[in-house]
């Protein structure tokens, strides 16, 4: 995994991350809740807010450049096509793909996983084969595999985790058996914040010739991702988790795999030629982009990646680590509070339970102080089951969050037991 390059020894100390300057880019964060308090948005693992640069890019596309892409001969179509394909190039560069044809635009991570399950994995799957996922997967990296396993009589197996919410890799080589046809693992857990050692998992799977998909939905906003360094076969992510619009994401797949895969959906733009006798398909990525795609979404996502790419990443990483340390310490000080997910390697996600209070009550009560956190099972019911809890409250941070917001969260949470008597 590539995160951030360390500054060389002896380099001058870097300026602290200027969070107020960054916040000024996010119009939504300027709002106040009903009683005049600032909104404290701590649900970034669900979706992130969008900077002006992204909103403007989408608005500009519809105001000035909108046309359907490909095959038009007029200038406007050329322009729209250039922007859409430019977004692909920017996305490829952002994750260091070797070739922009390795980036397929999809609706989001979920569609990316389903595409790989249906087009890549299912044809290779026979009765008795196995697909390996981890114990901390989001439902969207479980159900697509269950669907094809059910259809083919294959078995879904699970890499276990420990009480801190870290994957236990001791038995991984045994789990990677002769019938394992695919490994699908999350880069970062949405419910626990754990950063998984995906580079190691890829290496150990590849040693046995087993392909690996990485669900990167939660990683992209926090880590610099280098798909070639990871060595994975597929990497799926969503635009809206990384300060871009909803309804757009990408699937990275090696050209070798994509070229060998049958189409996922049929329609316009994914063909080479069609006749009633038969159809030949376009090469990737077009083969997997049937129908008019989310053009403005791709443009918006590219603007988001450009925005993130221009940040002083080392300062971002340091700021987020400080927020996580602060939140962990401040919440741990609340009587009866237990943090769920205490891995050594974590992003800024703090899931917790409070003795005598259900997560839903916590969510409603802190909302009165303008603090937005998510409550529930976070689409990771097996994780809740593992910890023997129905739900957690989860605060998840982005680089635009502040230490004052961490304090607001902690004091709002401390009030919960007061309200519940």
């Amino acid at each position, binding site marked *: 995994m590539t995160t951030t390059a360390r500054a060389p020894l002896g380099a001058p100390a870097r300026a602290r991350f200027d969070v107020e300057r960054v916040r000024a880019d996010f119009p939504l964060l300027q709002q106040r*809740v*009903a*009683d005049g308090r600032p909104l404290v948005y701590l649900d970034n693992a669900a979706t992130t807010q969008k900077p002006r640069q992204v909103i403007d890019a989408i608005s500009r596309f519809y105001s000035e450049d909108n046309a359907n892409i490909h095959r038009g001969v007029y200038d406007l179509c050329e322009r729209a096509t250039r922007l859409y394909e430019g977004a692909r190039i920017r996305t490829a560069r952002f994750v260091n793909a070797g070739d922009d044809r390795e980036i397929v635009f999809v609706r989001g991570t979920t569609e990316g996983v389903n595409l790989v399950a249906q087009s890549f994995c299912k044809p290779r799957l026979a009765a008795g084969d196995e697909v390996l996922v981890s114990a901390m997967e989001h439902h969207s990296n479980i159900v697509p595999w269950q669907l094809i396993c059910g259809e083919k009589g294959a078995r879904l197996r699970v890499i276990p985790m420990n009480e801190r919410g870290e994957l236990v890799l001791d038995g991984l080589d045994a789990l990677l058996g002769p019938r394992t046809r695919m490994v699908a693992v999350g880069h970062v857990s949405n419910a626990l914040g754990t950063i998984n050692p995906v580079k190691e998992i890829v290496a150990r799977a590849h040693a046995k010739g087993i392909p690996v998909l990485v669900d990167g939905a939660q990683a992209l906003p926090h880590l610099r991702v280098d798909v070639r360094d990871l060595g994975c076969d597929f990497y799926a992510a969503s635009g809206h988790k990384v300060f871009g619009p909803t309804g757009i994401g990408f699937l990275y797949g090696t050209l070798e795999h994509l070229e060998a895969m049958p189409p996922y959906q049929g329609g316009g733009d994914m063909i080479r030629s069609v006749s009633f006798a038969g159809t030949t398909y376009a090469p990737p990525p077009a083969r997997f982009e049937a129908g008019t795609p989310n053009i403005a979404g791709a443009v918006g996502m590219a603007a988001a990646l450009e925005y993130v790419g221009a940040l002083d990443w080392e300062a971002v990483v340091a700021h987020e680590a400080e927020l996580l340390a602060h939140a962990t310490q401040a919440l741990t000080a609340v009587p009866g509070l237990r943090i769920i997910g205490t891995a050594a390697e974590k992003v800024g996600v703090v899931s917790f339970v409070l003795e005598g*209070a*259900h*997560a*839903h*009550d916590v969510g*409603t*009560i802190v909302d*009165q102080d303008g603090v937005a956190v998510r*409550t*529930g*099972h976070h689409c990771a019911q097996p994780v*809740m089951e593992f910890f023997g809890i*129905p*739900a957690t409250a989860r605060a998840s941070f982005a680089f635009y969050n502040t230490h004052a917001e961490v304090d607001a969260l902690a004091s709002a949470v401390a009030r919960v037991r007061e*309200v*519940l*008597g």
Partner: protein
Amino acid sequence: MPELRELYQQVIVDHNRNPRHRGRPAHHTHEAAGDNPLCGDRITVFVDVEGGVIRDIGFEGAGCAISTASASLMTSAVVGKPVEEAERLFAAFHSMVVDPAAPADPRALGKLAAFAGVRGFPARVKCANLAWHTLHAALRADGERVSTE
């Protein structure tokens, strides 16, 4: 923004801390399970009906303060009442928590009127309704699992 005290009224806080009729009654004729998949609340309601009257009732399950208090207050309200009376209370309760125009009539609803504050918190209406939907299913005895989704 509506006040928290309107939602977490004293009677609700009390019934959450000390739920009445928790557990399975010694004998029951009807039961149903319900869940609220969004927040993981689960409840099973057991009813002992004899001669059209709810002789005994109990519930098991885990949920938030609103769903637990609602189950506790519901079981307290319907025990000893004819089934038709329980169904009438269900209808009155349901319209109180979902319809901003419906009056929270303390004469008709008694302590259940404490849940009128739920109207200000749309995300919590399902929590208040879960026990009632489950009771309704148990009385109809069609054995179907109830879900608020």
